[in-house]
C-alpha cells in the first residue's frame, strides 16, 4: 500500500508519493540479520581464540587455538562459505598472529590457502561421509601445520622444533569431530545467508 506522505516530512522526496523508510526498514533488518549470519562463525571463532589465550589453567589451551580455528575455517568453508568469507578468514588469521606472536601474516596466509582449497573442493567434500571428510580434513590440516612450521622457521632463520607441529596436527584432528557436531547443529539451526542459486 502506498502512502501519501506529508510534504513536511524531511525524509521523503518532494515529488515522490512513496515513503522509502516504510519499505526499507524490513530490508535493513534483513540485511543486518544476514550480516550477522555471515559474521557469526568467524566472530565466535575469534572470541574462542581470545578467551583461550587467557590464563585459564586449561592445559594446552594455547595449542587449542589454531586447531579450533582451522576446524572452523574448514567446516564453514565446506558447508557454508558465505559465513566464512575470505576477509573473515584473513582477519581471523591476522588476529591469531597478533595474539600468538607468530610472524605477522603467516597464519592469515595459511588459513586463506586452507579456505581456498576447501571452497574449491567443496562439492566433492560435501558428498563424502563423515569419516572420509574427517580424513580429508586431517590431511589438509597436517599440510597447513607443516607449512606454518616452514614459514615460521624461514622467517625467523631458525629451524623450529617439530614436536609441537606433530602435537598440533593430532590435536586438530581430534578437535574436528566435536566441532563438526556443534557446527552441524548450528548449520541446521541458523538460516543460510548464502545466495540461493
Amino acid at each position: 500500500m502506498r502512502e501519501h506522505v506529508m510534504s513536511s516530512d524531511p525524509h521523503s522526496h518532494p515529488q515522490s508519493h512513496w515513503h522509502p523508510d516504510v519499505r526499507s526498514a524490513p530490508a535493513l533488518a534483513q540485511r543486518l540479520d544476514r550480516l550477522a549470519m555471515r559474521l557469526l562463525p568467524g566472530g565466535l571463532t575469534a572470541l574462542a581464540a581470545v578467551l583461550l589465550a587467557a590464563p585459564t589453567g586449561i592445559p594446552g589451551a594455547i595449542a587449542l587455538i589454531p586447531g579450533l580455528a582451522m576446524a572452523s575455517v574448514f567446516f564453514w568453508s565446506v558447508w557454508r562459505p558465505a559465513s566464512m568469507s575470505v576477509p573473515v578468514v584473513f582477519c581471523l588469521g591476522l588476529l591469531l598472529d597478533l595474539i600468538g606472536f607468530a610472524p605477522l601474516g603467516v597464519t592469515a596466509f595459511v588459513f586463506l590457502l586452507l579456505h581456498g582449497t576447501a571452497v574449491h573442493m567443496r562439492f566433492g567434500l560435501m558428498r563424502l561421509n563423515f569419516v572420509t571428510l574427517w580424513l580429508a580434513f586431517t590431511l589438509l590440516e597436517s599440510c597447513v601445520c607443516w607449512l606454518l612450521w616452514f614459514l615460521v622457521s624461514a622467517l625467523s632463520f631458525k629451524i623450529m622444533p617439530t614436536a609441537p607441529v606433530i602435537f598440533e596436527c593430532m590435536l586438530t584432528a581430534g578437535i574436528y569431530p566435536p566441532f563438526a557436531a556443534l557446527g552441524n547443529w548450528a548449520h541446521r539451526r541458523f538460516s543460510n545467508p548464502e545466495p540461493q542459486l
Partner: protein
Amino acid sequence: MDFREGAAWQDSLPCFAVLPVNAAGKTCGMIPVSIQIRQALDRLWLPAMLLLSIAIMLLGWANQRVTVAARMATADVLSPLWSLVALPGHEISEAVSELHSIGHLAHENAQLRSENENLRGWYDVAVSLTQENATLKENLHWMPDPLPSFVTGRVVGDVGGLYSHAVLINAGPANGVRVGDVALAADGFAGRVTETGEHSARILLINDVASRIPVLLESSHGTAIMAGDNSSTPRLIFYAQDNHPVEGERVVTSGQADLLPTGIPVGTVHYIHAGTPVVIPYARLNHLSILRVFNFETGTIESPDAPGRVPVTSSRSVRSDGKKDNPLDGMTLGGVVETATGHPPAGYQPQRQDTQGSEKPESNRTNEEHPQNQNEDDNTQGDHQPLQKSGSIMPHSSFSFPPAGRG
C-alpha cells in the same frame, strides 16, 4: 534518483542474491555493477587477500617496530578482558587447592611444626650471619648495591603460541616496566621483558627457543649458557669440557652479558641423558600467575675511561713474548683478535688489575648469604680453597630477594 528508488522498491533482496532476471545491471549499495563483474570481483578476493597476507608477512619481517607496536596495541586492548576471564579461574583453582588441603590438615600441621622448628634454627643462623656480613662490609667499605626497583604484575595472557613461550602481564611502561627488565616468579628467574605496550608487557620465558641466558653453576664454579628449547627444561650449552655441570647443583645467573645481575636463582642441574645437562627451573613456568619485574639498571654502569687503556687500533705490534702464532696478526685489528684468542696484548694486564677493584661491586652483588647457601658452602669446602687463595670473587654470591608477595 528514480533508478535508486526503483531498485530498492523492486527487490529487498540483498545485493549478492543475483537473479538472472536483473543480470543486466543492478545496484549493490551505491555502485551498479553487472553480474559478470560481480563474479569476477568475488573471485578476486582470495588472490588479493593472499597477496595482502604475503605483503604483511614481508613488511612485518622487514619492519619489526611496526609489528611490535601492532601486537602490543592488540595486547593492550585484550589484556583487561583476559584479566577478567582469568579472575574466576584463579579463584576456582584457589578454592580447589583449599579443598584439597582440608583433607591433609593434620598431616600438614605436623609437617609445618617440624619445619618451623627447623627454620627457627636457621633464623638464628641468618640473623648472626647478617650481622657478621654487615660488619664485614662496613670494614671493607663495601659499595652498597643499587637497590632494584620492582613492579608486581598479574599474568593476564599466555601469548606464546606454538613456537614460543611468553606471557603477558598487566603492567607496562606506565608502571615503570622497561624492555630488558628481569621477571621473577615467587621462586626464581622466569624471563625477561621483550616488548612493552601501554599497560602491558610481554615477557619471554627462559624456556623459549629464542632465550639464551648466561649462567653460573654454583658447585662446579663453571659458566654455561642456558638455552631454551620449548620444553619445560632449558638445556645447558657451552660449558667447559673439563668442568661438566654436576647433577643437582644450583644454577644462578651470571652477570657476564651485562644484561642480568649476578646471582638470581634459576634452577638446578639435571641430566636427562648422559652428556645432556638441563636446568630444572625453580619457577613453575607453566603456571605463572604473578611476576615481579625488576629494574636492575645494569646497563648504566660503564667501565671508566682508564688512561692506560689500549686502543684497539694501536696494538698492531709484535707481542711482548715475541711469538707470532696468530696468522691474522698484523693484518686485522690486533686488539680484537688477541682478546678473542685469549692472548692479552702487552700492557693490557696491569690495566686490568687496576680496574678490578672498581669492577668488584658491580660483578658481585652479594647482599646476604642465604643460610641454604652457607650450608652448601660447608659441604663443598674443598672447592673454596683455591678461590680464597686467589682472592677472586666468589660465585656463591646470592641474589637476595625483597620479600615475595606470594609463597
